[in-house]
């Protein structure tokens, strides 16, 4: 296992302002565990507010974790000192959702893609240029793009620049946070295809965060479903899509719009209401307020993750 995450927790403190004087704790990620094999892609899927982006950012210590462990290639990332962490960062990178926010508007492509090399002290100026040009080519951009600024590019090209910057230090692990959510479907297909090709060429390990089950199915070998800071189901891709066990996963898979009008009249497991606020999550199973199969104990006892068969775990009282 290249990646082992154990009981990861991340709480944010909100409030303490003029308008909201009381401080509250939001448990954005509330004790989740998973592993990713070298060269594999784990999909983290969930609705807004489920905590999926926080997982990715906390693993890379862009947020400091509240508790838990992240073992990367046998090193405990959360106990590293800043200098050690910086050294490790070349091996773990992230691509954010919105390239307009993550690219620097006043830096040329050459300057921003070569920046991680400078910070990491890899090579010198003469080698950087060649490395950047090679990387641009790898992600489907031209060498002459290197002198341009982000505003001169389309959304898809900007995301290619972000990918080039993430891969320039030759990382083993890349967290992809909704990398195609802002893109049109034809451009999304180009970028997804690129990410798959890069994964196999460079033997990359991905954590792929997305709300789109179609994208997850195309990109990932394992899938973890999040709801309000918890993992509710965690399985290999074939098992999750063929035999979803958690009522939440079952509902998601039944209502995701399918581009085939012949499937219009299939059975749908509609959910009532919306995802509750993580400031004040329901007691017991956090999904119980919307669950069509809710039982009495779901309202008070939190279900534990349980292995149903090899490669399939679920946290639900229906399977106890």
């Amino acid at each position: 296992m290249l990646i082992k995450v154990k009981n990861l927790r991340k709480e944010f403190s909100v409030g303490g302002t003029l308008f909201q004087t009381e401080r509250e704790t939001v448990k954005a990620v509330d004790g989740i565990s998973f592993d990713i094999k070298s060269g594999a892609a784990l999909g983290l899927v969930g609705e807004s507010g489920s905590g999926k982006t926080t997982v990715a950012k906390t693993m890379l210590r862009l947020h400091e974790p509240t508790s838990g462990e992240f073992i990367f290639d046998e090193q405990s990332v959360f106990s590293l000192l800043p200098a050690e962490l910086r050294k490790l960062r070349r091996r773990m990178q992230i691509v954010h959702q919105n390239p307009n926010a993550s690219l620097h508007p006043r830096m040329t492509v050459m300057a921003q893609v070569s920046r991680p090399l400078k910070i990491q002290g890899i090579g010198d100026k003469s080698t950087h240029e060649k490395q950047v040009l090679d990387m641009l080519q790898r992600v489907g951009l031209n060498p002459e793009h290197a002198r341009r600024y982000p505003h001169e590019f389309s959304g898809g090209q900007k995301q290619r620049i972000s990918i080039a910057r993430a891969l320039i230090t030759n990382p083993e692990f890349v967290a992809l946070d909704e990398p195609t959510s802002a893109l049109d479907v034809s451009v999304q297909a180009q970028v997804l295809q690129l990410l798959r090709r890069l994964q196999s060429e460079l033997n990359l390990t991905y954590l792929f965060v997305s709300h789109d089950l179609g994208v997850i199915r195309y990109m990932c070998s394992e899938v973890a479903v999040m709801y309000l800071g918890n993992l509710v189901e965690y399985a290999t891709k074939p098992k999750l899509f063929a035999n979803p066990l958690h009522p939440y996963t079952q509902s998601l898979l039944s209502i995701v719009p399918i581009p085939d009008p012949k499937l219009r009249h299939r059975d749908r497991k509609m959910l009532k209401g919306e995802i509750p606020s993580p400031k004040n999550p329901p007691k017991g199973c956090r999904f119980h307020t919307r669950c069509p199969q809710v039982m009495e104990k779901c309202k008070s006892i939190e279900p534990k993750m349980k292995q149903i068969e090899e490669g399939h775990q679920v946290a639900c009282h229906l399977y106890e």
Partner: protein
Amino acid sequence: MTLLEIKNLHLQFQSDEGLALVLDGINFDIKKGETLGLVGESGCGKSVTGLSVLRLIPTPPGEITEGEIIFEGENLLEKSAKEMQNIRGGRIAMIFQDPMVSLNPVYTIGDQIAEAIDLHQPKGITSTWDGVVEALDSVQIADPESRAHNYPHQFSGGMRQRGMIAMMLSCRPSLLIADEPTTALDVTVQAQVLQVIADLQKELGMAVILITHNLGVVAESCDRVAVMYAGTIAEIADVEKLFENPKHPYTRGLLGAIPRADRDMNDLAIIEGSVPNHVNPPKGCRFHPRCKEAMDICRIEKPTDVDLGEDHIVACHLYG
């Protein structure tokens, strides 16, 4: 019976870079009670088509230079500002992607719906407030009596969009233009909102133009589909025909580019390049630089609409 007919509509915008022809002669119609999907990628002109129908294009910089918009037998382009005010929200209603922008934050939801009812005085409503409560009830807002006194910020995202729908439908329009109504919503809430629109449509017998980039949503909710590309309509057909037997190379590419949640896909169809700029669009067929089947004629001549029979219309030289 035809409710709305758009004939040869040309819309241009004056921009810093020059004159942009954002609608280049589009034709389509919509029958009473029908749902037409207007689908395409960003910049294809689907939203401005909706805005043109309601004469909401800011002039200048925008200008409709040619064409007709015939609604219930009358050309909307010949109506006075006052007549249009009665039509907007009365016989034709529109909802937008982000309800937080469309709702006024300092008035209660109930007051805002009441304003619409008072303005248009729809038949069959005993009192304004009864109309408000009935409208909220029809979009499945629980406890509509007290919820009507809430402000928009007290509603969740899905409730706000349902509140908007309630306001728009309180005057029983014969046409609803819904511009990406579920794009900002999570998949579980999207399913609820689409269901509400479909139920009310059946009840009121109104027609719906559903503007969306999501072909899954189109497949689930529309009777007919118009696929737009760079200010033109590439193809119009019944939803089943369009998904089963797409004719235009762009439609085929788009359908193959969607990663599906209901089946494993080895490869996605790739449409190279990105959407062209409106100021200097490609000559001939606007899709030709990205088309794998482009012929010499495509570079010179704009394709005309070809009727393949049974209301399947395609604008492509392959069929001319």
